């Protein structure tokens, strides 16, 4: 992972890609995949993730999908020229995740007044959502802990983990 704490920029993996406008289905599939990975969008057809073995592999497979669908893709390992640039990119990524965590908090709070069975289902759904967000959260915002706490509070209010409650919600 990048050394954001220090003043020295870390290493990033960049995917530069172009795909035919039509058909739109593979273009949208690639777009969705990149959203799921939580990429920073640096420009038209240029996305970035902090480099590690997993992110590099993920973008390699997206590149493969682009070329299989008639597009072109190149993968780059790069270092931002200044720490300030890197901070801006990381800040935008953190803000995007913060928004997702805030949606989880709102959902957890909205579910608080629901029936016990509905609360149990909401806990399952929100835990999956936390897992999804966590996979693409490279620069955790403080909303992360608040979101985890909100889901945990909902779980405790619904007594998730108590056999009769789990059974009743199925």
């Amino acid at each position, binding site marked *: 992972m990048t050394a954001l704490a220090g003043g020295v920029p870390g290493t990033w993996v960049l995917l530069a890609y172009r795909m035919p406008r039509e058909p739109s289905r593979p273009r949208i599939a690639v777009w969705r995949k990149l959203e799921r990975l939580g990429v920073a969008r640096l420009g038209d057809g240029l996305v970035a993730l902090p480099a590690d073995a997993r992110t590099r592999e993920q973008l*390699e*497979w997206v*590149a*493969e999908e682009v070329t299989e669908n008639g597009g072109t893709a190149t993968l780059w390992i790069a270092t931002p020229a200044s720490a300030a640039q890197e901070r801006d990119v990381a800040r935008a990524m953190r803000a995007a995740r913060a928004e997702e965590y805030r949606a989880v908090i709102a959902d957890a709070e909205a579910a608080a007044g629901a029936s016990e069975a509905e609360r149990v289902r909401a806990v399952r759904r929100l835990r999956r959502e936390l897992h999804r967000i966590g*996979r693409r959260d490279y620069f955790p915002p403080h909303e992360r802990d608040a979101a985890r706490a909100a889901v945990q509070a909902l779980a405790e209010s619904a007594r998730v983990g108590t056999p009769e409650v789990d059974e009743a919600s199925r």
Partner: protein
Amino acid sequence: MRWATRAGAHIDRAACAWLIRRVLDPAAEFVFVSDASEVPDDATPFDMRGVELGHHGGDCTFETILRRHDLDDPVLWRLAEIVHEADIDDERFDAPEAAGLDAVLRGLSMVCDDERVLELTGPMFDGLYEYLRRELLLDRPPG
């Protein structure tokens, strides 16, 4: 036969190596490379970008190998769902085993080299296969 894949084996590569030895080539030898250009001429590459046995059409490499070799064993396809979710995590399948398998493989790759990862995961996949086989036969989790 020789087979080549990228160094730093994780779930998909480890599972593919097991599948290759178990079903396609019991005497398989594996070569780990850091770049596609290092694949020896006599080796079949897998789980690398730009090769036939890679990710295709949303499939992970394990699924691609099953498809390309017309392997229709339902136990292998159930295992493929778990490998797919551990590798890609796109929720195409319901495979709660995947998260644990992902953590175990990531941890192993932190403390072992690739040869050792394959040595250790061979019996693990044998066991998982047997577990899934009994699960399919019984139509419920085996005791």
